[in-house]
């Protein structure tokens, strides 16, 4: 190939690429800032089910007005502001063609048109589906099967037939947005935080069963429960409830925590060698024991003395799992009665935190020493960071150990570690503008997926702990201000999405969900650790302010 030939090929290629790109861009983009186009979708929701829909052009104020007078009804009016075709080449491209939380989908088929609005897509849990492509799992905008099934149901045909012969568009709407709450970080007041933490704790208490266990994961859209259960998370929820009960002086919360503690003590306590441990089956982890110990310590602080022996025994179990390096063996074979020297994220931090907390009750030097060595191990980073034993993103317990130990065994290296970690978290924090206002303060998971609440909440628990230590360690005002702003903005995001009451018209049982913290803007499930982490971050902040 000559130089001139090469230049021609590249020029033609570049031109073709630019033209194709422009065509694609003009055809597919949506302008969400436009004035409504005239089509309005009016939906009537009752008991979490859409009971009527009317699509009109022009005035929609009185559409479904009579029906909406029935008690328990919510009328939702969504005006289409713009629409664009969907490239329904295959289900992969179809799924990638819809922006989660923002877009609805319409289809024209045999002269009729059906719509699934953003509310519908939330209701059928169609946003952000996992698609298996070979061995790769992709998170795409919508689940094409759910969308097609919903639209096909409206048009009385089959999803395959609709996909082959339908003409699909996505559309943006402007409506009477009820969820998330419109809340700026400047609106994050102490009263707001206190109200939210109470509400989160009450959610757990309300969803506790008679035996002391919790409804583990409640699907707000169906009202159904997940069948599984998890003892570390049960223990974590108990810990938060006990803390909330103590700090807010709320006997109802404390009673619920006591009952949840008794459930662990009486139904989930096993023998691991000379000591007791928490879990079920042939193998247990130290995460359950650590969080159970944290819960027992909080219960003891509130006067539930029946947990003292169990707490001291769990502390002895944790110490027996500790290695000379300061790290812990994370598992124990109940069947074969020996420790298993394997490590996963979180558990070392949880164990160190639990030993630090129990040391105040046991007054045992070995508990304090175990916590101190655990913390020192966690914050010692090898020169080659990528070879570090634990993942940098999962350090929220570490910084809580730092705070708890600070008055008794201050570790400046750990403080620096936590300050650095929070600086890294701030780099991942969304700022609006340019990000959309409702995501301000959230942590990015990537450009095409919505942020999750619990990873942020757990980092905020650590951020508040770090702030408390940074203040008493005399860290400069500029760093403190950055931490404060990070926390406030993060709280703003959590408060916006907490169910207070949330999109109650989409829920079959909205009263059960009040105070719950969902997984993400599209994952409206409440697992017990979601309100736990958000509530604990808020509680820590209230405690810090009260101490000041």
């Amino acid at each position, binding site marked *: 190939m000559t130089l001139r030939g090469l230049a021609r090929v590249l020029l033609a290629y570049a031109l073709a690429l630019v033209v194709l790109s422009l065509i694609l861009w003009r055809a597919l983009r949506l302008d969400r800032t436009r004035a409504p186009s005239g089509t309005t979708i009016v939906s009537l929701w009752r008991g979490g089910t859409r009971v009527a829909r009317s699509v009109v052009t022009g005035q929609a104020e009185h559409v479904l007005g009579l029906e909406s007078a029935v008690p328990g009804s919510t009328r939702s009016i969504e005006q289409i502001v713009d629409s664009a075709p969907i490239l329904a080449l295959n289900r992969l491209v179809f799924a990638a063609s819809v922006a989660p939380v923002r877009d609805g989908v319409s289809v024209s088929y045999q002269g009729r048109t059906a719509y699934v609005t953003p509310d519908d897509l939330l209701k059928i849990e169609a946003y952000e589906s996992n698609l298996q492509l070979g061995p790769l799992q992709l998170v795409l905008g919508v689940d094409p099967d759910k969308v097609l099934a919903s639209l096909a149901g409206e048009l009385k045909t089959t999803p395959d037939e609709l996909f082959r012969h339908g003409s699909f568009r996505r559309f943006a709407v402007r409506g009477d947005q009820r969820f998330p709450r419109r809340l700026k970080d400047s609106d994050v007041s102490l009263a707001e935080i206190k109200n939210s933490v109470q509400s989160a704790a009450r959610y757990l208490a309300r969803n506790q069963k008679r035996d002391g266990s919790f409804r583990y994961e409640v699907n707000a859209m169906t009202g159904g429960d997940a069948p599984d259960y998890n003892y570390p998370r049960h223990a974590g929820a108990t810990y938060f409830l006990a803390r909330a009960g103590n700090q807010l002086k709320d006997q109802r919360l404390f009673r619920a925590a006591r009952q949840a503690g008794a459930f662990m003590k009486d139904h989930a306590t096993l023998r691991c060698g000379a000591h007791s441990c928490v879990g079920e089956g042939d193998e247990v982890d130290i995460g359950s024991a650590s969080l159970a110990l944290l819960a027992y310590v909080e219960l003891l602080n509130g006067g539930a003395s029946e947990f003292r022996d169990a707490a001291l025994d769990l502390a002895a179990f944790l110490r027996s799992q500790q290695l000379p390096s300061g790290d812990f063996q994370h598992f124990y074979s109940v069947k074969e009665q020996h420790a298993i020297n394997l490590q996963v994220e979180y558990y070392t931090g949880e164990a160190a935190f639990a030993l630090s907390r129990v040391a105040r009750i046991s007054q045992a030097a070995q508990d304090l020493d175990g916590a101190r060595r655990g913390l020192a191990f966690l914050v010692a980073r090898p020169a080659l960071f990528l070879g570090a034993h634990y993942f940098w993103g999962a350090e929220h317990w570490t910084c809580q150990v730092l705070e708890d130990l600070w008055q008794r065994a201050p570790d400046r290296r750990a403080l620096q570690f936590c300050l650095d970690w929070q600086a890294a978290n701030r780099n991942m924090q969304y700022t609006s503008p340019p990000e959309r206002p409702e995501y301000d303060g959230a942590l990015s998971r990537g*450009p095409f997926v919505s942020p999750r609440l619990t990873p942020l909440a757990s980092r905020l628990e650590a951020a508040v702990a770090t702030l408390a230590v940074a203040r008493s360690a005399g860290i400069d005002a500029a760093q403190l201000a950055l931490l404060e702003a990070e926390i406030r903005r993060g709280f703003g995001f959590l408060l916006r999405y907490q169910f207070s009451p949330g999109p109650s018209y989409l829920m079959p049982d909205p009263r059960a969900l009040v105070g719950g913290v969902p997984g993400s803007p599209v994952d409206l499930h409440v697992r017990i650790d979601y309100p736990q982490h958000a509530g604990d971050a808020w509680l820590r902040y209230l405690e810090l302010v009260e101490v000041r």
Partner: protein
Amino acid sequence: MANVSESRARVSFAVLNALVAVILLVGVFGLMHPRFWAVDCPAALLAGVELVSAVALLARLPWALRALSIAAWVTFVGGLLLVALIVLTMVFLRSVHGEDGMVATAVSGLVLALLVPYTLLLPAVQLLWLKGRVGERES
């Protein structure tokens, strides 16, 4: 003098092609898990072609220049397709997600900048050099 410069060019291309093959093999088969045929097959083909041409050039085999030509064309055409695929995907995602796609556009731009030297620039230089050699021989 001309022989010395040709010899240097052959060795340079051999080393660069071997480097591209090693980067591909380590990147795809060493670091990327799990296996996926749609990535593995083109990567293995490309790495194979590059390695064969590198060995042939270093060993001064009679068909070395033909192998280099095939490797350069395969890489160049593959590079054009890959760049087009990435650019069109960027445009598609930006169209769907609007401003939310800004970061992805920037990251994809960086990926493109890293790819172009190996997938377009190097094979283009090799094709120009091969054409130059043919020109010299004819004159």
